């Protein structure tokens, strides 16, 4: 196996822990890079990668990379992490990350985009995306500055299929109606926790991991809602890009990182949920935390996988979002 490895993974807290483990196990030097947007690594793959060995790739970027033949197939049969995936993750991975019986990405975290709300403000789970449209909450809510997420949330709110909506005008009108209720369109995940902490907002679309991190690690009074209209989720996955200079070390890293006992560290270091069966068996956590982390089982009926958008639909969402912001 090669003696060096270059990892691009935005779970920086977990990476710091994993690098030590990997070095001890394989005596390999690991360089790491975090990134703020997947376009950073995707551009490198487009230009012909000769630098990155392993990437934490997310949702549509994985499928796009597969479509463009940028990824190596993974020897998942030899990886404990593959057989340990929970039912939902296994079936999603087989459907979206597999081509010709070859798997190109193994889920490392299950990421939901739920409605997160202030438990100080709401006595109980508001249970509906309606709160982002309630006029009495004007100046107390926020929408994410990401057209795809905003349009999908509006699709859920208006009773449409977020992966294949049919009434774009309704989505646009709903978002324009919602616009003035927002404090801002948030772009950076960490500022959301600050806004909850400062009582600037009481509800927004967020991620389960950041909600867990805020609630249990920073003691911010927030929780994720089981919205009656449903919510979206996706995966961050381990992938090995073509052109990786240290492919064997990358396979070893992927194998180590996806093993249940190592993947479980993602909860303690970052608050994100590895999509493995019986996560509680690998963690010494309170019942309340375990209950929070059980959303894929508890809320599986409400959760809709974020399917990769067709080019036309992505353009449509982008156009709507630009119009809304310019309105």
């Amino acid at each position, binding site marked *: 196996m090669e003696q060096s490895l270059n990892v691009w993974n935005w779970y920086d807290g977990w990476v710091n822990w994993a690098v030590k483990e990997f070095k001890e196990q394989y005596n390999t030097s690991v360089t790491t890079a975090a990134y703020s*947007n*997947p*376009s950073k690594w995707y551009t490198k793959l487009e230009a012909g990668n000769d630098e990155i060995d392993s990437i934490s790739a997310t949702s549509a970027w994985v499928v*796009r990379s597969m479509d463009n033949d940028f990824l190596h197939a993974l020897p998942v049969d030899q990886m404990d992490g593959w057989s340990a995936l929970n039912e939902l993750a296994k079936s999603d991975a087989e459907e979206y990350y597999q081509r010709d019986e070859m798997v190109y990405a193994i889920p490392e975290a299950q990421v939901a985009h739920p409605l997160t709300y202030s438990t100080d403000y709401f006595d109980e789970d508001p249970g509906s995306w309606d709160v982002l449209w309630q006029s009495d909450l004007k100046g107390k809510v926020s929408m994410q*500055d*990401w*057209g*795809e997420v905003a349009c999908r949330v509006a699709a859920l709110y208006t009773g449409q299929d977020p992966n294949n909506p049919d009434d774009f005008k309704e989505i646009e009108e709903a978002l324009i109606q919602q*616009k*003035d209720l*927002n*404090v*801002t*369109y948030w*772009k*950076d995940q960490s*500022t959301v926790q*600050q806004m909850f902490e*400062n*009582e*600037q907002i009481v509800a927004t679309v967020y991620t389960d991991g950041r909600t867990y991190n805020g609630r249990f690690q920073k003691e911010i009074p927030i929780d994720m809602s089981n919205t009656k209209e449903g919510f979206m989720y996706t995966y961050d996955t381990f992938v090995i890009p073509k052109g990786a200079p240290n492919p064997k070390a990358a396979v070893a890293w992927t194998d180590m990182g996806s093993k249940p006992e190592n993947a479980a560290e993602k909860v303690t270091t970052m608050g994100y949920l590895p999509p493995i069966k019986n996560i509680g068996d690998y963690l010494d956590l309170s019942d309340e935390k375990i209950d929070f982390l059980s959303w894929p089982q508890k809320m599986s009926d409400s959760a809709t996988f974020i399917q990769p958008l067709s*080019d036309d639909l*992505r*353009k449509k*969402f*982008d156009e709507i*979002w*630009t*119009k809304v*912001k*310019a309105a």
Partner: protein
Amino acid sequence: MSNAVSSREAIASGIEYFRENRWLRLGLFIGVPVGVLVAFFALPLLSMLWMSLLEEMPPSALSLDHYIRIFTGDLYVNILWRTAVLTAESTAIVVVLGYILAYSIARFSKRTTLILMLIILPFWTNYIVRMYALINIFQKGGVLDTVMLALGLTGETGGIMYTHPAVLAGLSYVWLPLATFPFYASLTNMDDSLIDASKDLGAGPIKTFFRVTLPITKDGVIAGIVLVAIPSFGSFITPALLGGTNVLMIGMVIEQQFTSAFNWPFGSALGMVVTAVVVTLIVLGAWYGAGGQITRSGGDLE
């Protein structure tokens, strides 16, 4: 010994050859900078132009669709206009603040170097870090709130985060040094006796400023305006992090095309439009700086 002599002779003959060979001299002194300009400016710009003319991500057919989309509807023209207004506002603030600052340093300060160092100090810090510093200052219960409460200027904490003033303050803070330096350079190059002459002839300080100081430092002011307006026009991080829902600049739309919409050709077309605006600004700046005529020397003083 003979080796040292022969190498000295080789160097001397090389220098002699260089002096006599005009094409070699031209190649070195003009070819290298031209090569750098072509490789790092012209080719990327041409590449962006080519990308903007593609229908889809490459490989794809050529088309003018993206430019038609920009200029046929109201949407992008409005965004360009709003960007221009915000740029004008922030540039005006920076010019006024920068000129006052430069004037104070040039006329009244003895610790010029120290103050200039302090002005440039923020440039040594990463742009994003500076934005997060501003968030800590502007947010509800932040430094600004604390100071205003302590001074009795406000009775409640609210902060100015996610407002139009926050964006203007952010842009002004970031680009202030870019304007201050050309202002300072033009003020220090000014002959002070002209101010004395103006006063001797009966002009007050305000009249002297507008009739003598400002016209003489006009080139520096124009340079400052151009230096501030160009990056302000393309800003996307500051309005995205500090602004509310009503601050949309063209830079944010371009970023959206590259990072989430996967529509690089359209992003490139918007980028080309911004480039055209910037080039127009530079040409106008050079034109007015040269008193209405563009020459290599910057205009005829007579």
